[in-house]
Every structure is written in structure tokens, then in C-alpha cells.
């Protein structure tokens, strides 16, 4: 396994998207026969790096060398022909095609234009190898569950016989058994001389798999070291670049159990994604929803806000039942719920419209367009934006011209302008820089102090641990466990999220 020749080298790589710099002058290399973990926060530039290597995007400046020779990729097929294969986090399966065709098309083997049968046999073998024997080749991909799709995606990557295999959050939807099976295949590949780049947010996966670790932060390559050379806390410090105390606001006083809840959810079920969900949120509390992606935590908030149809169970606001929920009724003055969706570009706002127009949209149909003086409202908006320290040229600029973090601030203030009693947030800090993150955390903390009930769904464990009073961990559509106080640690969150019953007591893993 000790082939330490450099398979791929990046030097001076920079990638910019308009005014946003995703990667800054990055030097990086990895060797054949190693498993190399890439760590970093959301927005640290990991995904951009992977896309460069997979030939999806080209660098703005800098050089990629394969086996010592400078190389330019014309596209993903070109990169794959050179043995660089990426298993994409966002998945690259075509839903209307069958499993077999999806895999075979990634490296078509054809004679006289016709696809060979041997390709399908190889695809079958790849699926069997990672323990996905149950997935039929002739099943259309849109009929598969998320976990099954992820397995197909992995099989598709294996099918391309990679020299460099990139696994970008490859196993986020898989159960522990399936993950272990995939990992054993990854180790086999390494021993056969493949270089594996591995991105994961789960520390224990990195510990069990990686030979080497590289940390990225804000588009720069911070440090590379052998696995085990730096401890958990040290790695976190490298990723964040500042200590957690500075990032998160000081802890708030816990809310007494006797306080009547503002939002109660009872026996909520929906399709096969939610099963009997129950929880209460008191005014002044930040209630976290955690778990692996796709276990129902996002759906709960959509169901409360009234986006989903056919939800069973009850929702109470301030002790009164709130039935026939629609977004329009949810934002009304008597209910007072605000909802910050996950995808700010498509669901949260209209990127081509100006900042003010976007802020007005949430108020449509609510305060009567004519009843409030324009100047009063504008002053109100400006005060909110000022509070969030928004950097902008003019309020008439389109939202698209702002950076991701500033867009999120506009999205937040658009809802705060309605003075809600309860605010539901879906992963509000995903892909946002550290400074804005800290500002958003401070704001949420202030809002809670002021008596607002906040429900925060997040994929970031630190966020849940340091910001929330209580956290409900979802597993397969129901709340597997509610954690609070001393029990609220990253370790416990992760084990509950993976459906493990054994919860470690104590605070040893608290960062």
C-alpha cells in the first residue's frame, strides 16, 4: 500500500464566481494508495475543489497536474477517462432511466453504437460488491429511496474504475451497516492503489477511514497532517479558525418547564416521511431539530407552516388549535409564524428583484398594502437590516448581487418585519461565512431573549449543541430522542441520528 507517488497535484488554484472567491491560491496534492479526508465547514471550498478535480468546472487560475503532467479537463467525461471520478453529494442520477442504464452511461462500452451486455454485468457486479444486491438493474431510479440512490451513485463511481475516487458526503443517507460495507470496499480500493478523497461531516467516519487529513477554511488549504496527529478539538479549531466561544453567543438561561408552550405539535404524520411527531416549544426557547438529512426534520417545519397537504395530527399556537394551515394563514397577525426555507435562491426570495421588493413580498396581503406609509415601512426595514449589519449598496439593488450570507440576512429581516411570534428556520447557516454565522447566532439568541419561540433545523451539530435549549433528533420520520442540558453533546446527537440506542453519558465529547 505504500505507493507514495503523487497522483494529482494542484498548484496556485483559484476559482472565482463573479465577486465571490471560492478557492484562493490553493496548493494541494494526494498520493495513490491513500485515503485522504478533506475537512472544512460548509462554504470552505471543499465542493469547489471536488468539482475542479471532476472536470465539472475549470479553475480561474492555477494548474492541475496528473502524474506530474499539467492537464485540462474538457468535462466530466474527460476527467473520468483520466481516472478521476467523483461521487457527487447532490447525486447525478437521471430519475427516468433505469439503474443499469444510469451506471452504464457513465462509461459507455459499445460496439457499432450498441451498448454491450458486459457493461450491465459489470454494473451488477459493482452493486453487489457494495452490498446493494437487492437493487434491480431494470428499476427506474425515481422509484428508489434516497439511501438506495446513494448506493447506486457509489456503484456508478466504482464502475468507472477510478484511479482517484472522490466521495463527497457519499454515505450521508446510509444506515450503519451499509456504511461499513461501503467503507470496506473503499479500503480494498485503497489497497489496490486507488487514491480516495473523502469528504464527510461525521468525525467518526473520518477517524475510521482516513490515512491523511487536509483542512480547508474560507477557500484556503489550511493544513495537511497524518490522521491522528491532531486531536478532535484541534481539528475543529483549524476548521473554524476561531474558538467556539467567539462564534456562539453566551448560553441563555433555561426556560422553566412551567411556562406554557407557544407551539405544540401533536401526533403529526405525513405520507411515509413523518410518523407521530410530538414536541412543544416555549416562548424564549430555541428548539433544535437534528438528524441525518432526509429523516423528516425538514418536513416537520413545512407541515407546521402549511406547505404540505394531507398532514394528520394537531398543531396548537398559544394554546389554540391551528387547523387548515396554509402559508397565508400562518403568517397572519393572529398566528404569527415565519418560515425561512432551506434554499434561499429558489424558495426564500426572488433573486432578480430588489432588496426592498423582496422584503415587501412577505408582507403582501398582511398589512394591507395601502395602510402603512411607505416611508415608515422603509425605515422599519432599514432598521432591521442595520441591526443585522447588512452590507449593501442601495436598497434597490437586486438580491442576486449580494453574497450568500447577506442574502440570508435579507431573508431573515423580511420575515422579522412582520413581528412573528414563532420563527421556523431550515438550515439558515448552510454555505455561509463564519462572520455572518456568528451574527445570525447572536440575532437568534437575542430574539429568543425577547420571548420569541424559535425552531431551528440544522445539519451542523455544533450549532445545535451551542445554540439550542433542547434538540429533537429525528430518525426515520419520528423523534428518536430529545436531548437537553448535559446530554446535549455532539456524540449523543450523532449516535441518536444514526439510530443507535447506546447514548454516551458524560461530557467527554463536548467541544
Amino acid at each position, binding site marked *: 500500500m505504500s505507493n507514495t507517488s503523487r497522483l494529482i497535484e494542484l498548484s496556485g488554484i483559484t476559482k472565482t464566481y463573479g465577486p465571490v472567491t471560492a478557492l484562493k491560491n490553493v496548493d494541494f496534492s494526494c498520493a495513490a494508495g491513500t485515503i485522504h479526508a478533506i475537512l472544512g465547514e460548509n462554504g470552505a471550498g471543499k465542493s469547489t475543489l471536488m468539482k475542479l478535480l*471532476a472536470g*465539472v468546472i475549470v479553475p480561474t487560475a492555477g494548474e492541475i497536474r496528473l502524474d506530474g503532467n499539467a492537464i485540462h479537463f474538457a*468535462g*466530466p*467525461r*474527460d476527467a*473520468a477517462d483520466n481516472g478521476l471520478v467523483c461521487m*457527487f453529494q*447532490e*447525486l*447525478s*442520477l*437521471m*430519475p*427516468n*432511466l433505469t439503474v443499469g*442504464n*444510469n451506471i*452504464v*452511461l*457513465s462509461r*459507455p462500452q*459499445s460496439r457499432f*453504437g*450498441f*451498448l454491450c451486455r458486459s457493461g450491465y454485468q459489470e454494473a451488477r457486479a459493482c452493486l453487489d460488491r457494495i452490498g446493494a444486491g437487492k437493487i434491480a438493474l431494470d428499476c*427506474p431510479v425515481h422509484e428508489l429511496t434516497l439511501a438506495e440512490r446513494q448506493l447506486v451513485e457509489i456503484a*456508478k463511481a466504482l464502475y468507472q474504475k477510478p484511479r482517484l475516487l472522490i466521495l463527497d458526503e457519499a454515505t450521508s443517507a446510509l444506515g450503519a451497516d451499509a456504511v461499513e460495507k461501503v467503507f470496506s470496499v473503499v479500503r480494498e480500493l485503497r489497497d489496490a492503489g486507488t487514491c480516495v478523497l473523502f469528504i464527510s461531516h461525521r468525525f467518526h467516519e473520518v477517524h475510521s477511514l482516513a490515512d491523511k487529513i487536509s483542512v480547508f477554511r474560507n477557500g484556503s488549504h489550511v493544513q495537511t497532517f497524518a490522521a491522528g496527529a491532531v486531536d478532535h478539538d484541534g481539528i475543529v479549531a483549524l476548521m473554524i479558525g476561531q474558538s467556539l466561544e467567539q462564534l456562539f453567543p453566551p448560553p441563555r438561561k433555561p426556560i422553566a418547564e412551567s411556562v406554557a408552550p407557544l407551539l405544540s405539535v401533536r401526533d403529526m404524520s*405525513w*405520507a411515509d416521511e413523518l410518523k407521530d411527531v410530538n414536541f412543544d416549544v416555549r416562548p424564549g426557547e430555541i428548539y433544535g431539530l437534528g438528524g441525518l438529512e432526509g429523516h423528516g426534520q425538514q418536513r416537520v417545519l*413545512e407541515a407546521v407552516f402549511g*406547505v*404540505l*397537504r*394531507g398532514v394528520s395530527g394537531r398543531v396548537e399556537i398559544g394554546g389554540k388549535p391551528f387547523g387548515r394551515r396554509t402559508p397565508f394563514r400562518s403568517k397572519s397577525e393572529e398566528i404569527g409564524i415565519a418560515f425561512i426555507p432551506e434554499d434561499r435562491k429558489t*424558495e426564500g426570495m426572488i433573486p432578480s428583484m430588489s432588496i426592498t421588493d423582496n422584503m415587501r413580498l412577505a408582507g403582501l396581503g398582511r398589512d394591507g398594502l395601502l395602510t402603512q406609509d411607505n416611508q415608515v415601512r422603509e425605515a422599519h426595514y432599514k432598521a432591521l437590516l442595520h441591526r443585522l449589519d447588512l452590507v449593501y449598496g442601495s436598497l434597490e439593488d437586486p438580491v442576486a448581487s449580494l453574497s450568500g450570507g447577506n442574502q440570508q440576512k435579507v431573508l431573515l429581516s423580511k420575515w422579522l418585519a412582520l413581528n412573528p411570534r414563532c420563527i421556523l428556520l431550515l438550515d439558515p447557516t448552510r454555505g455561509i461565512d463564519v462572520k455572518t454565522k456568528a451574527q445570525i447566532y447572536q440575532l437568534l439568541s437575542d430574539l429568543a431573549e425577547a420571548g420569541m419561540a424559535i425552531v431551528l433545523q440544522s445539519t451542523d451539530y455544533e450549532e445545535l449543541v451551542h445554540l439550542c435549549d433542547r434538540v429533537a433528533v429525528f430518525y426515520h420520520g419520528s423523534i428518536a430522542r430529545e436531548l437537553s442540558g448535559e446530554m446535549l453533546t455532539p456524540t449523543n446527537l450523532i449516535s441518536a441520528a444514526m439510530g443507535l440506542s447506546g447514548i454516551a453519558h458524560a461530557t467527554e465529547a463536548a467541544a
Partner: protein
Amino acid sequence: MTFDSLRRNLRFLIPAVAFAVLFVIYINTHPRGFSTYVVTIWANQGALLVFAAFAQFFVVLVRGIDLSVGAMIALSNVVASYAIAGDGASLWFGILAVLGTGLACGFANGLVVALGRIPPIVATLATGAVYSGSALFLRPTPGGDVNSDLSDAMTYAIGPVPTSLVLIAAIVVVFAVMLRYTAFGLSLYGVGSSEHSAALTGISLIKTRIAAHALGGLCAGVAGFYISMVTLTGDAGIGPTYTLNSIAAIVLGGISLGGGIGGPFGVVVGALLLKTVAALMFFSGLPPLAQPFFEGLILALAITLGSLGLLRVRNRLKLFAQ
């Protein structure tokens, strides 16, 4: 046939059954009953629409739409009225010229859509105007001359089987094999199914789009050629009906306008179903002026049935997603 494959082919099976039923009714209401003659007339009319529907099909498969289908058909029909009057080598050359006209028009559409990044509905509306303008310029009033021996061979019957049905069968087999067993055919589905994923899989979006348009154009050329066989003239004014009917036919045949769903058998069934409905109207005794109304009504109903799946959408955000 297993339950799964039945369920997956429902979009095709429902129109197929509807077609079979309507066809039986049609034959029974026809004053001359079932005979090679009746079926040949019906099949010739049907074949025109089948070819036109294929012209639309390939473009829709990659999530586009082609409003110039009728214009491409009209232009190739007009070219045919000049080019295939002779015999021998000049006849063969003429046929190639007709098909080449369609192919070139489709290819041009593809270039505009894929390289110019202009939405297909706008691009093909514009190119369609150019094509039908050229057709009108070439032949302001219907007319021209077509080799009648060739016409006879193409529009009569081989034994008891109408030649047009043999042509339809041949084209379906070719396309079915291509779409199912070649990387190119699967790429068409891939691009229509998810552009993003197709690109990440290494499929060239630009090449695939252009090829889809070119293939559609070729089918329009075949349709224009066959019209000249049936009518023995060239007519620049036939375009608009074919554009609309080509879309209606593929929708009836279970092809999704959202791209990536549907097959060549569906195209044939949809086109023949639409033709049979029109033919039934003709013999139904309804006043002729009311017939387009009922044709439209049936079409609207069929399309509504096709979107019943929306009632099962449980997330309001997804209602208008496609």
C-alpha cells in the same frame, strides 16, 4: 408481463387500449366495413401524423418543444413537389433532397436552441416562420408534380397489408432499438430526465440537443415526403395543423412534455388514436363545423386525465415544479 412492468407502462397502455376500442368502433361504423381499401386510406392518413409526431417526439424527449414542425413539413413537401417528379437516379436524388431539407431545418433549430441558448419555444417559432416563408416563396399556390409510380408504391398495399403500415412498423423498430440499446438513445432520455445529472454523468448537453432536433427534422422531412406521395402536390399552407396535431398526438401517446418520458410505441399509438378520433367524427353525423369543437374537447379531456397524477402531489411547493 409482471405487475411492475404493467405499472411502469401505464402511460402507454391506457392510450393503446383506447385506440384499440376506437379503431373497432370506427371499422364497424364505416359504411364499407373492414377491407384492405378502408384500412389503407386510414393508415395513409395515420402515417402522415405518425411521422409528424416523431418530429415533435425527439425534441420533447430532451425537454424542448418544436413549433416549427409544421413549417418543416410544409417546406419539405414543397421541395418534394419539385424534386421527385423524375425517375431513376434523379428520383433518388430528389428523395434525398427532401429528407435533407428536413434534416437541415432540424439541425439549424438545434444550433439555435443549443448554442444560442434561446428557449426552444421562441427559437422554433422564429425559425418556423423562416421555413414556412421559404415554402410560400417556392410555391405560392398548391401544385407541382410527383412521380406517380412511386406514389402508387408508397400508398397502396403489399398484399393485404397497407404499405404505410409497413413503413410505420419499420420506423418504430429502428427508433425503439436506437432508444433502448444505444448510448445515444439513452442520452436523449437522460438529458430530458435531468439535465444537471446528465451533464455530471458526462453526456454532452449541446451535442445531444442538436442531435435530437436534427433527428426530429429528419422525421419532418419524411412526413413532407409522404404527404407528397398521398396528395401528389406540394402545399405551403399545411404547416399549422401539423404543428398542433404533432403535440396533441405525443401527449395522447403518454409522452411527457416535461421530457424524458415516453417511447416510440406511444408516439404511434397517440398519432393513430388522434387520427381515428378525427375519422370517427367524419362518420358520426355531427355537423362538420362542430367537429373541431368535439375533437378539441376530447383532446382536452385526454390531457387532463394525463395530469391526474398531480392530485397525488403532497407538497404544495412541488405542484408547479414541472
